[in-house]
């Protein structure tokens, strides 16, 4: 092969001498490292050293990260109270639907929460819905972002059917999402002292400023025969109706929490909190659960050990691989790049046939 290479390069120089006359017409490709596919390149190969180092490095990084995450999750204090069943009076327990639909029944319900650990402010109040498919395709699509953004788009209700237009004109905000607005309310007391719930700034600023117009006021909302959820104060622009804005940011998964408000006071351990719930929202028709959640927060968000466990597992696995590979390389080594391992060298007879 070298002979060919040498010959052709020899030919090339000879040609360049004689090519002064025909240089212009020569079709000889110009040499460049690019066209000859010889760009300088790094060619990593998986040497035992590299492999083991990779695994060890991943292990060393992942295990501490996992532990930190677990620790952070551990630090979160969370109180969860499921109240959907408990808040239905005993005589309605076989007919929850009738209870929740009736306008006459008393919907208020008092629950008592025990604070096990001290909670530092701010304490976030969430409501959690289980088995509520806010990500159902029809539900997700049933909104009109144009209408929400400005007054001009008021009549843009095409996507909102069947909750688009009422007898009196377009519904603002239209669509199933808005129509099914969550409308349970909570009032908190500690030792008969009312705990202030701050419901401001619970929605994303970006949504308030860009997605929900300050000139858009609720109109014809929940005016039909079937009420889906909460009412809206038609004198407050949508950009200020933060509970609606929170609700309209549809959840990704069928079990989700939404921010209800914040308590900006520390709570001591062993305190009892009395919650008065207006149990208005109908989750009984589809077997959904309602939960009230009080939670502090850390950098990892709510209480969730999954990520920490995942990190520790992956890190541990990597260390395990590192050790196994060290052992493998010691027990059964193969010299790298040894041509005697090439198939035709191992089995010279077999090759040419």
């Amino acid at each position, binding site marked *: 092969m070298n002979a060919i290479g040498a010959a052709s390069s020899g030919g090339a120089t000879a040609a360049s001498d004689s090519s002064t006359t025909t240089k212009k017409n020569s079709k000889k490709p110009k040499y460049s490292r690019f*066209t000859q596919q010889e760009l300088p390149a790094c060619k990593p190969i998986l040497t035992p050293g590299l492999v083991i180092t990779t695994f060890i490095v991943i292990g060393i990084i992942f295990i501490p990260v996992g532990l930190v995450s677990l620790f952070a999750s551990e630090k979160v204090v969370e109180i969860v109270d499921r109240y959907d069943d408990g808040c239905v009076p005993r005589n309605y327990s076989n007919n929850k639907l009738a209870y929740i639909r009736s306008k006459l029944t008393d919907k208020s319900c008092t629950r008592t929460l025990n604070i096990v650990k001290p909670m530092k402010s701010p304490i976030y109040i969430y409501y959690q819905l289980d088995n509520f498919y806010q990500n159902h395709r029809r539900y997700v699509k049933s909104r009109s972002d144009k209408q929400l953004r400005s007054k001009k788009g008021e009549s843009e209700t095409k996507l909102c059917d*069947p909750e688009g237009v009422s007898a009196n004109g377009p519904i603002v905000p239209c669509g199933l999402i808005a129509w099914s607005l969550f409308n349970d309310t909570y009032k908190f007391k500690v030792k008969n002292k009312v705990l202030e719930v701050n419901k401001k700034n619970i929605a994303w600023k970006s949504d308030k400023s860009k997605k929900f117009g300050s000139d858009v006021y609720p109109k014809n909302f929940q005016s039909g025969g079937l009420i889906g959820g909460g009412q809206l104060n038609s004198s407050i622009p949508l950009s200020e109706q933060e509970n609606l804005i929170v609700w309209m*940011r*549809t959840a990704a998964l069928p079990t989700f929490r939404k921010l209800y408000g914040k308590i900006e006071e520390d709570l001591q351990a062993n305190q009892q909190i009395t919650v008065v719930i207006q149990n208005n929202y109908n989750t009984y028709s589809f077997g959904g659960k309602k939960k009230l959640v009080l939670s502090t927060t850390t950098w990892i968000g709510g209480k969730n050990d999954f990520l920490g466990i995942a990190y520790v597992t992956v890190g541990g696995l990597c260390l395990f691989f590192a050790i196994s590979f060290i052992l493998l390389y010691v027990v059964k080594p193969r*010299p790298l790049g040894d041509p005697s391992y090439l198939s035709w060298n191992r089995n010279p007879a077999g090759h040419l046939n």
Partner: protein
Amino acid sequence: MHSAAVEAFDLWITASRQHLSIPSPTILNTRDLDTPPVSSEIEKPNSTYPTMNSGMDSKSPLENPSNTEFAGSTSSRPSISSLQYKASAGNSIKEVAFGDSGSRPVRYGSRGAESEALSTSQKEINEEDARLVYINDPGKTNERYEFAGNSVRTSKYSIVTFLPKNLFEQFHRVAYIYFLVIAVLNQLPQLAVFGRGASILPLAFVLLVTAIKDAYEDYRRHRSDKIENNRLAFVLVNGQFEQKKWKHIQVGEVIKIHANETMPCDMVLLSTSDPTGVAYVQTTNLDGESNLKTRYAKQETLLKINEGKFSGLIKCEKPNRNVYGFLANLEIDGKLLSLGPSNIILRGCELKNTAWALGVVVYAGRETKAMLNSSGAPSKRSWLETRMNYEIITLSFFLAALCTVVSVCAAVWLRRHRDELDYIVFFGKQEYSTGAAKDYNYYGWGAEMFLTFLMAVIVFQIMIPISLYISMELVRVGQAYFMIRDTQMYDEASDSRFQCRSLNINEDLGQIKYVFSDKTGTLTENKMEFRCASIWGVDFSGGNGASQNQQNGYSVQVDENIWRPKMSVKVDPELLRFLRMRKDAKEDNHVHDFFLALAACNTIVPLVVDTSDPHVKLVDYQGESPDEQALVYAAAAYGFMLMKRTTGYIVIDVQGDKQRFNVLGLHEFDSDRKRMSVILGCPDKTVKVFVKGADTSMFSVIDRSLNMDVRHTTEVHLRSYSSLGLRTLVIGMRELSATEFEQWHSSFKAASTSLIGRAALLREVAGNVENRLCILGATGIEDKLQQGVPEAIESLRMAGIKVWVLTGDKQETAISIGYSSRLLTDQMTQIQINSNSTESCRRRLDDAMAMSDNNTGGTSGAGSALIALIIDGTSLVYILDSELEEKLFQLASRCSVVLCCRVAPLQKAGIVALVKKRTADMTLAIGDGANDVSMIQMAAVGVGISGQEGRQAVMASDFAMGQFRFLVPLLLVHGHWNYQRMGYMILYNFYRNAVFVLILFWYVLFTCFTLTTAITEWSSMLYSVIYTSVPTIVVGILDKDLSRNTLQRWPQLYGAGHRQECYNNRLFWLTMIDTLWQSIAAFFVPLYAYWGSTIDGSSLGDLWTLAAVILVNLHLAMDVIRWNWISHAAIWGSIIVSFVCVVIIDALPILPGYWAIFHIGKTRLFWLCLLVIVVSALIPRFVIKVLYQYYRPCDVQIARETEKLGNQGELGAVEIEMN
């Protein structure tokens, strides 16, 4: 050529009869021939010749008798093109061409069409089929028929037709139709999963890219058309020649062409600057042959036009593709003349050595033969692409399965909740506003199931990777770019680059198992060199030694100037001495006659070329046969220099003495006779016939009673020449008596003027005069091996490629070339099959099988038992297309080398088909001549050598290059790379899209099976178009698993392609399992990390999008072997671009996901999720890869390590060499 000579001779006869008193323009006078030469010899009666011929045939003395049977071509270079050309010049194509093998019908598809086109030339012109051309009366010519104008259009589209036509062509692809159907489905309101814009985007993008590519190509064609159409030519208008644009030229117009101008259309020659009406043309543009060809104007038109009158009626056949045929009548002054191919000059030819030529346009524009022939190579499909279709079908099943799961689950959900549907907000059977019961878009669970299925198809559509098709196309273009620009595949001698004529089969180059090679011009240079001569029984084969000192060779003084042959030939000093010694010895003229025959018995035209020295002129011998050229140069070197050739006479400088020989007649070479002859009127008033031809045909016409010993020694010499690998010719001569001459002359004249069956008659005349010859001697011409051929063949063989050589040459020549090219080695057992009946073929095959059984059985432990099979064309006649085919294949597949000698072009294709039909192995055919076309088109990959022999092979090929040895870089380097890259790219594309689809699928399981996508529709459309496409293409074009040096040092590495290491079923399923795991990791980590949190759909969708993008790009990064700056830019760039795109999409307030990425991006959880997804998804692949590479390393892997860890490599190289 033939009829040309005939006519010229005709002319000379008439001239000498009618204008006896007019002195001819040269010193020598026609008087020489006025008195026919007298000879006292008495001939035998004619009738004895045939019996004698046949008698000799049957016991032809040379090697084996079966050889004579077959019409391989021995003497002049056996290209069918030249045979065809010469024969068709005699107005009858049917005798030669592909009818060669006699009983075998013309088959093998692609040739069929052409042979049909050829056959149209043989028919007599019917009145209704004819096209009538009135000379110089374009008005009348064009009034009845609409003949095409002369403007040509090679472009496919115009601005108006571009869109519909281009779209129509693009939608020939099934995949595109699939995506179109999906885009249309998505427009139905019930199924509208995506917005209108988003759903059309990917298809539109793919269509747009292809359309832009097509438009650019077409624009270039438009431009070249415009230049072509606006060239100027002189056209006769109202008796004056005026300049006219080419596009305005009409059929029937008379055109004047000057020297070195190109023909604007096909025209019948009327007159030229030469008084005898000769014009020389160069047909490089048409068929690539650079030698000059002669064309003639008819005497009648010549005279008439010289008087200034242009009239007449040409009746010619309809336009057809046959470049070598033309059939027409010319009616002039009531006389009917026949016109043949020698009277027509085709578009694209250049006029040379002729001051001007006048012609009448017969075919113009797209009806010209050049245009009719300008169709491209047939498209082939690569093996990988064919194989890929199975995987595409598998993926379709996946897709269907996913959709079925979703739709069935959806139906089950609806059934289970059918009582609750009234209340559930999504279906609300009740009218929300009024409370009245009313279905809202609920069609019952059955219909919902069906709709869900269709919607699922829309959502999961990219399971079938549309972008793969466009990526493959771009990658192939990129690979072709690098192949074309490879300096190792640039041929200095012919200044030709590598050419990719077909862009579909790059990757097949990496899996070639059989190479079928032509010999002459492919393995050898087809530059003939005169090496040795046997004259009158004396062998002169020196010339290798001290001859170099007379570097100037022979030269002739003409006036003030010195004429010298352009090419010098090594001369045998002994022969030179011998010649000088004998110069005056009149009694023994054999040497003299021998060289005279070499100089005269040919169709070579000497051209005088100026050099930088004004006193030195070079004589360039132009001719169609390289053998003839070599012989004429040789004759010149020994002092018999051909100075001038006109139609009637030639001038030869015999040892400084210029002599004029009248050419009384010329019998062209044809493949039946396998010889040619010329009848010369010599200065000493004798008439001699000189014949040269293949040994087998010559020995049958030699007078056996004469010079027994000379004949015998010549035979011995011939055998030794051919065993040296030389091409041999035998020269003979005879002096004609006056009566013989008269007899011949009258029959020759009658034959050459007859309109029907002219060629057959001429052959008969030739047969009558070419007999009872006195043998003069034989010549040996070397067809040198091309540079690097032995090394290349060695490399190919080491790479596990079986090289078969198919040649028209004799067995001895073929075997000796086999040895010199290292195809055959001494260790090989040769099996030769030369049989002439089915029975004996069967016997030989059985024997050979038994022998190979023994061989392989007995020595399997000891080492490699190599068998070479040598088979000839005659045997193949009995074997191909019979039940013996299977046996031959069995045998051949055990042989490491197969040599087929004396095979006809169609047999070459038959042999390729023999292998192609029976195995899935890839075949490659390489050749340079028209006789290789059928084989090139038959093989999976056809490679044309753009060499000495015209462009037919190149035109039919998929790849074209200058030298045989470029096969090594082409296959071992580029083929290997292309295969590896393409195989990886296809698998990666499957994986890439499937991961994404699976992530969508998992999410669907958490949304009541309603096909919501958390990932925005824009991201899911851009995913395969922008987020992940560039790195695949870059890697597909640029990644190299091994360096060029390694691949060439260890050709065995090519076996990776044979073993299908880069693309196979196992890899596909492994990839799919990996895909499943990766999608699970990417989907479920965020799911559990965010379960029961406040996360909204858009944010989680962004997380999944980015996770998928980073994952697939890092997956690719893990597999990239060579990181150069371009791959860095592509991979990291893609990730960055994806981030940017996601940010842009989330910055649009109109979309529900507004600002989501900024919110989630602020949390550490998001980044930790990304990290753990990527790591956990890639760990299994990494571990398996490491284990495989370490404990089950493939050759490529070891070679790569060797490459990286240099010093150990040197050690290995030594070892290899010892092996």
